[in-house]
């Protein structure tokens, strides 16, 4: 009897797992996905507003010419095909012919040209389209981007949330520079993407519904997306756990990530952040005091135990990242100095640099931080450097602008910092090391780092069309950066995506939720 029951149970288990598998294979149409945004949305128009919070609704409302698969290979989206001329100076986009905006107007090359103009004028990432001199429109479905120099970064810049195609007939009614405050950015939005806006209530939710005339047949699968705005991470965690939320991204608290991993029916994954490329690091002001000496900077890197940060502070949720390029990027080269903990080497380097221990201290430094989340790292650095007799004073900032001001004026010794790659290294990596970008606001080269070879390597990589050569240039670049430590690269930000078993095909590609989720579906 017992055996038979067991056999039946096994058979039942096999059938359910098989049907479960079959369900995963075939997406289902319909349903409302309840998901979440971790902070308030300032602007839904991703052509003029960057950032991860705008990225999620923005990429649903607006389509871009390309999308990327998990292997960093560009795929057709609004552009069904594209050609790059041999000299790399013209990029031709052949748009799909049946694409319409949410008000039924056809999407034409005029809109592409207009969108590029708007992004160039309003979007904060100037390097994305800086080499684009003009966009010609030989016919309604062909757009030709004319470049002043080869610009391989353009490919990633034409995907995800970075190149949202917006309707000229809506946003073209005023000056190009005024689009960022256009009233239609947050209400009556007319987009080009798989979902259209139903309602945006500031501080409450963004509700999107399926656009039936979307240019890809049969998509999107979902009827509706409700993006609730819940700013408290603990409340979000409970909402995943009790099933109020189907899915959410950018969860970064190690304690919460590890707790949710144990919850049955939830999957918690670090996949989906390769292109956004979020990194944590210890920045050093290379322009003044002891930190101007590379030996002191190396000594600090040897004294700060990366494993403690990864295992104790991040509780195993973050990964080691040794350079300014995210480890998930094809350009990442981890074959550089890792700065494993070595207090003796650190002490020797400090002695060599001329900072012997005097009255129990070699030197006094300050360390800044801009938001409470990274205070543990800062306190740890203080404790770690005490072991090599460096006194560190922790300087808290009242809020982000206070810290940003200090960074922008290079009024700091050490600081904890968090910077995103945003696709191609040209967009989000160069800014930190480029000597022509020293201290131009926060997240510029606030370290005051300057190395002619690094500048040269970045300039060459920016125009190198051959991916193999480009990777080699970036490998040398990362070698030098790791060797000269203007920044001690410690770890990736442990962003995780949480989704319930009900969600099929969650957005785990290189752009995560900054990409259309037209292929995501609900299993029941």
């Amino acid at each position, binding site marked *: 009897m017992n055996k038979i029951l067991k056999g039946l149970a096994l058979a039942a288990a096999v059938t359910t797992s098989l049907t479960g598998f079959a369900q995963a294979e075939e997406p289902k149409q319909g349903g*409302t996905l*309840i998901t979440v945004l971790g902070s*308030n949305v*300032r*602007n839904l128009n991703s052509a003029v*507003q*960057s*950032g*991860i*919070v*705008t990225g999620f609704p923005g990429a649903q409302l607006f389509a871009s010419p390309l999308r990327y698969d998990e292997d960093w290979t560009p795929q057709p989206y609004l552009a069904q095909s594209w050609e790059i001329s041999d000299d790399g100076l013209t990029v031709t986009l052949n748009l799909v012919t049946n694409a319409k905006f949410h008000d039924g107007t056809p999407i034409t090359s005029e809109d592409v040209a207009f969108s590029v103009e708007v992004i160039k004028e309003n979007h*904060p*990432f*100037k390097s994305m389209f800086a080499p684009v001199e003009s966009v010609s429109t030989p016919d309604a479905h062909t757009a030709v981007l004319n470049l002043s120099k080869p610009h391989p970064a353009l490919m990633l810049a034409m995907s995800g949330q970075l190149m949202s195609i917006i309707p000229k007939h809506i946003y073209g009614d005023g000056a190009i*520079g005024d689009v960022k*405050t256009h009233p239609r*950015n*947050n209400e009556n939005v007319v987009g080009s993407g798989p979902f259209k806006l139903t*309602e945006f*209530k*500031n*501080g*409450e*939710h963004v*509700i999107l519904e399926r656009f039936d005339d979307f240019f890809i047949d049969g998509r999107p699968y979902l009827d509706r997306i*409700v993006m*609730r*705005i*819940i*700013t*408290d991470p*603990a*409340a*979000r965690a*409970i*909402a995943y*756990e*009790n099933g*109020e939320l189907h899915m959410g991204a950018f969860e970064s608290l190690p304690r919460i990530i590890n707790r949710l991993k144990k919850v049955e029916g939830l999957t918690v994954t670090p996949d989906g952040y390769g292109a956004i490329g979020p990194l944590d690091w210890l920045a050093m002001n290379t322009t003044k005091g002891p930190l101007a000496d590379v030996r002191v900077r190396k000594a600090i890197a040897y004294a700060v135990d990366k494993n403690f940060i990864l295992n104790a502070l991040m509780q195993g949720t973050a990964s080691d990242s040794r350079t300014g390029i995210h480890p998930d990027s094809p350009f990442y080269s981890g074959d550089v100095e890792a700065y494993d903990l070595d207090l003796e080497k650190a002490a020797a380097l400090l002695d060599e640099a001329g900072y012997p221990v005097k009255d129990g201290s070699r030197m006094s430094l300050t360390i800044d931080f801009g938001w409470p989340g990274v205070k543990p790292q800062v306190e740890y650095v203080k404790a770690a450097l005490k072991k090599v007799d460096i006194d560190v004073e922790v300087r808290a900032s*009242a*809020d*982000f*602008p*206070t*810290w*940003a*001001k*200090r960074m*922008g004026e290079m009024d700091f010794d050490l600081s904890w910092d968090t*910077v*995103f790659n*945003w696709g191609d290294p040209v967009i*989000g990596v160069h*800014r930190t090391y480029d000597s022509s*970008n020293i201290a*131009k*606001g*926060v*997240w*510029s080269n606030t370290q005051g780092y300057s190395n002619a070879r690094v500048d040269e390597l970045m300039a060459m990589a920016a125009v190198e069309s051959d991916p193999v050569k480009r990777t080699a240039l970036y490998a040398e670049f990362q070698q030098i950066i790791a060797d000269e430590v203007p920044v001690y690269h410690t770890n990736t930000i442990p962003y995780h995506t949480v989704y319930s078993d009900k969600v099929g095909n969650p957005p785990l590609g290189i752009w995560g939720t900054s990409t259309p989720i037209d292929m995501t579906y609900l299993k029941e």
Partner: protein
Amino acid sequence: MRFSDHKKTQIVASLQSFLMRCLYAVIMLMAVLVLNFSMMHLAPGDVADTISQSMGGADQEILDQIRADYGLDQPFLVQLGRYMGNVLQFDLGYSFFYNAPVTDLILQRLPATLLLVFTAQILALFIGVVLGVISARKPNGIASHFVTILALFGYSAPVFWTGILLLIGFSLKIQIFPVAGMQDVTIEGGFWVHFLDIARHLVLPVITLGSIFLALYSRLSRATMMEVLGSDYVRTAKAKGLSQNQVVYKHALKNSLSPVITLAGLQFSAVISGAVLVEAVFSWPGLGTLAFQSIIARDTPTILGILFFSALVVIVGNLLTDLALRLVDPRVGGKG
């Protein structure tokens, strides 16, 4: 005419004092705005930094452009003059961070906060007074100790802690209340369906916020009730043979209420401050959350607009308190 001359002069006098109070209030409000504007200006950095933060970084050119767009590149006095000029025309300006008129932002959020705070206040006031009276009648009874412990807990437990604890208990372990927000947008139905939905969302935030108020009111009404019960006229009432209940509810209660109502009036100022944390924990789409986020974002027009509104609420609240006090105690408001 029914009014005597004396009554007339009295009315004129109180009208005058009322108008004077309004005038003071307006002056006070202007001073608050100037002071806050200046303080916001003194702090290093500005909204351009937080906008660039929300965008993942921006270069100097973009920062300058943002500052020019919002007039932040103008000298301080020009900015201040411009702002005050607008306020005098009842224009609270335009939010830098949210790209929306401040008045719209506030009016969108105000109902949620008023709903939360008033529900919590009224329930806490009612329950607090009842508990206070019960425990005052038997100061050494079990009920009295219960009230003391409740008050101590309610007053000393941080609201975000109480809130999270309630969430874990009643949203996760026993899933009867929702985690966040004010309504479930996927629910469809008529007025009553939505009414019940909002009520369900309201329960945990109201308990969290109400626990502070409850502690205050129950302690205070217990203390005043005990004092009143020991006074001469209560002894007289008892002596003339009234029952204990009649003494407590007819004679003592009214007199013990005055301090409680005064306190409740003062608590109107907690509309913003008290609600901030509770709103944050429960993602309640109210003014507290907006205030908090605007301060973080250095969104000066929004912060000043909220201050303006909360000052108005305090003033109106105080006037209402006065009225209520006159109702329970006719001596209040009369001269001498």
